[in-house]
């Protein structure tokens, strides 16, 4: 693969969508500002020009209607990709998502399929306040019937999107704004990646070992993977060798990958930008201890957003967000370096 193929997350997403739209006339895109604007977070840049207004549809601010329409179109043989601009807006349209898209397959014993991708922007760190900065991984992963994916880099972004579009079940595709490589928002090094031009898929439920290590397992997803990797580098200098697991999807959840790693390291830190309680961190930790609490040589730690709405002022939001420093501190605790 030519090394000039380093793409941003958004370019990678768009490439996957465009490829599927070329290959399959049943694929269409709907959402607010997905046309001329190209998606507020550049998730649809250029699609209108190539595919036209019939297949790339700007919608009114009517999430209940256009996501419901996505379900209806999917059941009628189309493969809609629908954008919910910010995941924070789920509250105005959750019924169409969790009670319809996610359940119609079950209610019909699989006789009806809902091959819809709902893509939505997540995450904070750029001071956008409490209704535009949430992650809400667990809000969706807790409810049955949706596959839930959250890529951490451009390579996965393309492969997971291709898999999502080809999946006959509804897939919630959660992309972190800070990983899109937008000209106007800082992104971590490593969010952009070499991306093959040809189409490829990444299976759901297969975590990726982002960094091998032997002393402690750091489990993360989406943006948190980059914080985990940065922490691991810093820890290496202190002589601690951390393994970093990128879950890539919440549903299905690759519990085996976590167990394999913890069986090796005996120590566990789980990092998530979503709210702390009743979230991903608890699910991962419980998945380990319910299998065998003996695997853990020390108390597991979670690094997540505290149970408070997301504050607007930078110092307060940064205080709450996971970051490499907080992860290092948590790892240090699991290593018994500091009092828990």
């Amino acid at each position, binding site marked *: 693969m030519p090394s000039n193929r380093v793409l941003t997350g958004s370019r990678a997403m768009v490439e996957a969508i465009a490829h599927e739209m070329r290959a399959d006339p049943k694929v269409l895109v709907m959402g607010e500002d997905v046309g001329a604007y190209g998606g507020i977070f550049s998730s649809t840049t250029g699609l209108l020009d190539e595919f036209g207004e019939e297949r790339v549809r700007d919608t009114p601010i009517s999430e209940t209607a256009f996501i419901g329409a996505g379900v209806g179109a999917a059941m009628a043989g189309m493969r809609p990709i629908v954008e919910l601009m910010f995941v924070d807006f789920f509250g105005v349209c959750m019924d169409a998502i969790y009670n*319809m898209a996610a359940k119609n397959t079950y209610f019909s014993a699989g006789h009806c399929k809902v091959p819809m991708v709902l893509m939505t922007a997540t995450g904070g760190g750029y001071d956008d306040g409490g209704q535009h900065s949430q992650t809400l991984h667990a809000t969706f992963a807790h409810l049955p019937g949706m596959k839930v994916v959250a890529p951490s880099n451009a390579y996965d972004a393309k492969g997971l999107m291709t898999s999502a579009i080809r999946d006959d079940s509804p897939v919630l595709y959660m992309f972190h704004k800070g990983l899109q490589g937008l000209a106007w928002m800082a992104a971590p090094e490593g969010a952009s990646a070499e991306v093959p031009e040809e189409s490829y898929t990444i299976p759901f439920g297969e975590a990726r070992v982002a960094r091998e290590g032997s002393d402690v397992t750091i489990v993360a997803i989406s943006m948190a993977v980059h914080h985990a990797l940065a922490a691991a580098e810093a820890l290496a200098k202190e002589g601690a060798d951390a393994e970093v697991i990128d879950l890539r999807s919440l549903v299905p959840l690759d519990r085996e990958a976590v167990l394999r790693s913890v069986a090796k390291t005996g120590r566990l830190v789980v990092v998530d930008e979503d709210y702390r309680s009743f979230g991903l961190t608890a699910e991962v930790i419980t998945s380990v201890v319910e299998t065998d609490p003996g695997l853990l040589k020390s108390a597991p730690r979670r690094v997540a957003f505290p149970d408070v709405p997301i504050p607007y002022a930078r110092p307060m939001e940064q205080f709450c967000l996971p970051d490499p420093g907080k992860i290092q501190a948590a790892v240090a605790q699991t290593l018994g370096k500091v009092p828990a």
Partner: protein
Amino acid sequence: MQPSKEQLLWMYAVMAKARYYEDTMAQAYMEGKSPKFDIGAGPVPGEMHLAAGQEPCAAGVCVHLRRDDTVTATHRPHHVAIAKGVDLNKMTAEIFGKRTGLAGGRGGHMHLFDPATNFACSGIIGESAGPATGAGLAARLQGTDAVAVAYLGEGAANQGAFHEALNLAALWQLPVIFVIEDNAWAISVAKDKSTAVADNSLRAKAYDIPGVHVADNDTLELFKVAGKAVKRARAGGGPTLIEVETYRYYGHFQGDPEVYRPKDEVSGLKARDPILRLRKHMLGKTDIREAEVEQALAKARAEVDAAFEFARKSADPAPEDALQHVFA
């Protein structure tokens, strides 16, 4: 536009079948639930919303539909499912929660899904509007002249989903017909306690689409109105909103104490029963013979009896099969 003899007989048969279906279901549902009503007992699980009295809404619209047209119905779906041609055995078995049901008992009375006839329904008020709009969009993108019909109760016309879907369907000029079954009640809440306008068809003005009101549960009038709307939609003329004044004979659900409505309301309504009125019309105003009507009636009843028989005889699902079909 006058219905042909075949159309009249078809509508009559559908309405008679739907009525007999609901009356039969009312009986079956109460088995094991009386004398003391216990929702968790008896052969028929769950809640039960029956549509006796509302048959015109089903027959008068679906008479104009094809198999490839989509219908999304409400929590009160039996009459519409029957009119759309959903397999009566599988549907009844589903309502009995049996292995042979449409979804092997996973969905139930409020969740009847039949891809063979493009029929679906839902237990959430207003949920029919979005998917019908999407089916209309699919037809347009697929280049067919199929249409979609969304059924809603008059109570649903105050749910946000109704507004959003009508605007979207009108904006995109999609082939969707929104049919409001105004049975005057949303559980215990009367229409004038829920809706700022007396007639929901007025709300079509908010979307610049035709809105038509059909009074007095009139099958023949609805036949005309719906025929025009379907024709218009097929021709690319966009959506229509129809409100039908209809009657609800049973309680909101079986077991409804009905403390909220006058005791004599239903008897008053039954005096204008739409099936008897249609029969009267057929025998009085057309050359349809009583024998033909009786035959249609007998056939309809036989099919219903057979469906209940099939459902009762069918096996329960295996408990562990609950874990299947979460994903496609």
